[in-house]
């Protein structure tokens, strides 16, 4: 078999490596694609594997064309398009699998492999987590090892260590360059290309309407809603009310937001206590509002989004939050807020038609007793404590007058039941009141020194306007004593010390688990902050610390190219000038002689003996023949015969010196 033919067929072990690496590369996409499409792709992998191992036939040309056509049609049918990231990556995955059916020459294998490298980038389109990063790093390692296996004609499957270690070394060597480019590559304030909207994806987190039962579904999720780094002390747990949508309108069952004019700065209010400064990292929830500690003092600052306020202190981003969003804020936890426009007053006291008559009657009763508004608020709050109200995640279904049923018959509910019942009661008594949805509390991660707020912290509470005090926050859920809380998970929410009677070992295990969870979350937080969140702002900060103040686009590009070239040049120099150390003077003198000839265009081959080399040089440069022969003879005498002493070394030294002058 000729050399050319050998070069054209990928070696058997290389083909198996290729199969494995391509499987790893497509795996995240196979998991995302419709199951029937993924299974078809796996069948093709299986077919190729059987071909390699058992020698099964691959399809003929026409069948292959048919399969390719079906593959394109299948992706089209599954996604209703061939464009966009979802369908595009699926099409690429399917085509890569189909390529396995006609992979014959080394060239085919290399193309498939390079598509594999490209697909690694595709993996980041859908997830940029640490886990995905780690996985894709392993995939790159597998691909690089495959590249080595494919180009190793004499290699074999059992040499996997050689491939992996060589591939690993290559990746490690490229690491400094990667870091350099990561740190210095000019960042755009907007993405270079925008990833188009991806179909109907589920929105997570709070919705902008509240119905009985909408939050109790949400709190079952342990997903992180946002994380908060405080600049100073963390406020007390009972001050951690994270304000979200404010709900005014109700039809008796559903609560909705009110249309209001937007404004750039927060409405004015009176600050009573200390200010709290903090930075929120919000997980994407595909809605426009963002969360701040009650009450925000300033307009949040973030890299590439503008924000504005509504008069009821809702904070909105100008776009839906589709990527992680970091913004810095200041808030005052003790305040006095008086603003109540006539429109707000009207909205805050409106109750629909004739719904919930018993509730209205109760409020009417209180009014007839002639008590002050502040006492009415007290009465309402005490109602939940003194009557047998239960806090539960599985509240019973409510009928046409939900507040009536809740207040007078079922008396079992979740925070939205309490908040809406309380607000309805206050409005029936003529007091302006509104529901605020958001999050309450959070877990403090000591490992990362930040607060984690999860979906399970979702909450709803009430605000009542009193003539003397302005808007007053009332959280009617807290009126329910811990003894009437049904779910053990929620018990932890009411009292910080767990009343569960664990054994000591179990407690230690639980502590270990919490530590692990906090550690992992802290790692994720740093990843978000320093890797995903490394934007132009951070880049400029870093460069400023390095003493570089004019970091324009061109500058950055220049520095990056310069540094990369410097690294490459350094590596090249090290390779060029790395030579095994020679202590033997004879070998050193001969090396000098060879170097001189190499410069004259006659380099000695690695495996060329002194006699052969002398003969070749003499033939090429007859005028040097005698000197070359003399030096070679002397070298051989010193190095390979029994003879030769110090005077020979001296004469060799002299001859080499003369030779260098002669050439």
């Amino acid at each position: 078999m000729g050399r050319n033919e050998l070069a054209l067929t990928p070696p058997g072990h290389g083909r198996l490596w290729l199969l494995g690496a391509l499987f790893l590369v497509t795996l995240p996409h196979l998991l995302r694609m419709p199951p029937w499409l993924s299974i078809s792709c796996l069948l093709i992998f299986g077919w190729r594997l059987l071909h390699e191992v058992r020698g099964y036939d691959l399809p003929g040309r026409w069948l292959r064309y048919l399969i390719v056509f079906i593959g394109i049609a299948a992706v089209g049918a599954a996604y209703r398009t061939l464009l966009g990231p979802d369908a595009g990556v699926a099409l690429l995955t399917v085509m890569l699998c189909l390529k396995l059916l006609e992979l014959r020459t080394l060239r085919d294998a290399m193309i498939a492999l390079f598509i594999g490298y490209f697909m690694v980038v595709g993996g980041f389109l859908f997830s940029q987590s640490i886990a995905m990063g780690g996985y894709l790093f392993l995939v790159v390692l597998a691909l690089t090892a495959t590249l080595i296996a494919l180009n190793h004609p004499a290699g074999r499957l059992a040499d996997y260590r050689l491939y992996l270690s060589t591939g690993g070394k290559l990746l490690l060597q490229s690491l400094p360059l990667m870091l350099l480019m990561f740190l210095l590559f000019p960042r755009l304030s907007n993405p270079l290309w925008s990833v188009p909207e991806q179909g109907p994806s589920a929105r997570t987190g709070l919705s902008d309407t509240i119905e009985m039962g909408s939050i109790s579904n949400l709190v079952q999720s342990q997903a992180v809603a946002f994380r908060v780094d405080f600049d100073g002390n963390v406020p007390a747990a009972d001050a951690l009310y994270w304000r979200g949508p404010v709900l005014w309108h109700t039809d008796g069952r559903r609560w909705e937001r009110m249309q209001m004019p937007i404004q750039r700065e927060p409405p004015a209010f009176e600050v009573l206590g200390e200010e709290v400064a903090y930075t929120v990292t919000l997980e994407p929830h595909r809605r426009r509002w963002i969360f701040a500690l009650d009450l925000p003092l300033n307009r949040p600052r973030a890299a590439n989004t503008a924000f504005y306020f509504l008069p009821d202190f809702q904070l909105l981003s100008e776009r839906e939050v589709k990527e992680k969003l970091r913004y810095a804020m200041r808030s005052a936890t003790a305040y006095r807020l008086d603003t109540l426009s006539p429109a707000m007053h009207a909205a805050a006291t409106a109750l629909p038609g004739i719904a919930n008559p018993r509730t209205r009657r109760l409020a009417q009763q209180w009014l007839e007793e002639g008590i002050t508004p502040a006492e009415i608020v007290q009465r309402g709050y005490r109602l939940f404590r003194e009557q047998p109200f239960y806090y539960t995640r599985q509240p019973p279904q409510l009928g046409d007058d939900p507040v009536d049923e809740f207040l007078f018959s079922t008396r079992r509910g979740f925070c939205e039941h309490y908040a809406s019942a309380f607000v309805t009661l206050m409005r029936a008594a003529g007091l302006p009141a509104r529901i605020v949805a958001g999050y309450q509390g959070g877990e403090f991660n000591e490992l990362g020194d930040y607060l984690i707020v999860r979906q399970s912290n979702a909450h709803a509470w009430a605000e009542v306007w009193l003539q003397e005090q302005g808007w007053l926050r009332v959280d009617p859920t807290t009126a329910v004593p811990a003894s009437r809380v049904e779910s053990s998970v929620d018990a932890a929410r009411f009292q910080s010390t767990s009343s569960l009677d664990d054994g000591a070992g179990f407690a230690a295990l639980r502590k270990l688990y919490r530590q692990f969870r906090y550690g992992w979350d802290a790692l994720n937080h740093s990843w978000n902050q320093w890797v995903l969140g490394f934007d132009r702002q951070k880049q400029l900060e870093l460069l400023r610390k390095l003493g570089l103040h004019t970091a324009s686009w061109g500058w950055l590009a220049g520095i990056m190219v310069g540094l990369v070239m410097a690294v490459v040049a350094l590596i090249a120099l090290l390779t060029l000038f790395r030579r095994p150390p020679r202590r033997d003077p004879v070998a050193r003198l001969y090396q000098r002689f060879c170097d001189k000839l190499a410069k004259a265009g006659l380099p000695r081959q690695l495996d060329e003996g002194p006699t052969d080399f002398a003969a070749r040089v003499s033939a090429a440069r007859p005028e040097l023949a005698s000197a070359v022969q003399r030096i070679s003879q002397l070298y051989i005498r010193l190095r390979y015969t029994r003879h030769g002493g110090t005077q020979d070394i001296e004469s060799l030294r002299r001859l080499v010196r003369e030779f260098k002058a002669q050439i």
Partner: protein
Amino acid sequence: MQPPLQQVIEQAGRFILGKEHPIKLSLACLLARGHLLIEDLPGVGKTTLSHVLAGTLGLEYNRIQFTSDLLPADILGGTVYERDSGAFTFHPGPIFSQLILADEINRATPKTQSAMLEAMEEQQITIEGKSYPLPSPFFVIATQNPTYQIGTFPLPESQLDRFLMVITLGYPAHDAERALLMGRERRDMLQEIKPVIRPEELLALQRQVREVHASESLIDYIQALLAFSRHSPWYLTGLSPRAGLSLLSASRAWALLAGRDHVMPEDVQAILPYVVAHRLQPADDTTVHSAEALVKPFAEVPIP
């Protein structure tokens, strides 16, 4: 080159046309006290080469044709009851000769092959508890048909290891073949061979080979070659220490043939393919390699 060796090569060259390199290799193998395996198609002159060598060196010569029904006793000999003396006496087999041509050794069964090869290794045979030394010098030229031909028992690697060198003769060049076709009957010419060297002189030369100087730099080179074979992904298994010794003694013989009293890296390179190729297993054994192609990767080893 020493005059007697020069004469040997010249006379052999007259009978085997255009094959000076294989003749020199055979002679080096003989001087290094190794055995030679010629692997080639029938009819390219394997038998002639061994005839000529035996005649030129003045050695007693026996030819053993290996067949599938040949038994160990057919080679080694055996004890036979003699009615006249009333005692068992040992009748030496054809192996008791200074130069043996073991023709088509891979046609014999493994049992017979191993009897032969053990005798080669030990330089003596043992029958019924009694040892009989083989003559000295003792040199085996075995021939083997290419293993893919039918009716062969390929020699296992452990047996191949006992041959210092494995060479091929190959087809003659155009001019040499023409001279062969135009010339006299080879069989007649063989009768005219005259020894140019006596067995004692040959033994002296063999001793001289052992005196050829191998410097530390040269040993470095041989060790580098061995290490390369062990770490290189081109081969399944590396070379053994015995292979290293063989490499050294063959290089010494080659240096002596070149008339030097010291070994040069070029000597090692000259005999490398014939000494190591049969001891190496290529990792990619899908193709049939020539010895020269098989050792090509050794060019990566720098001469220290």
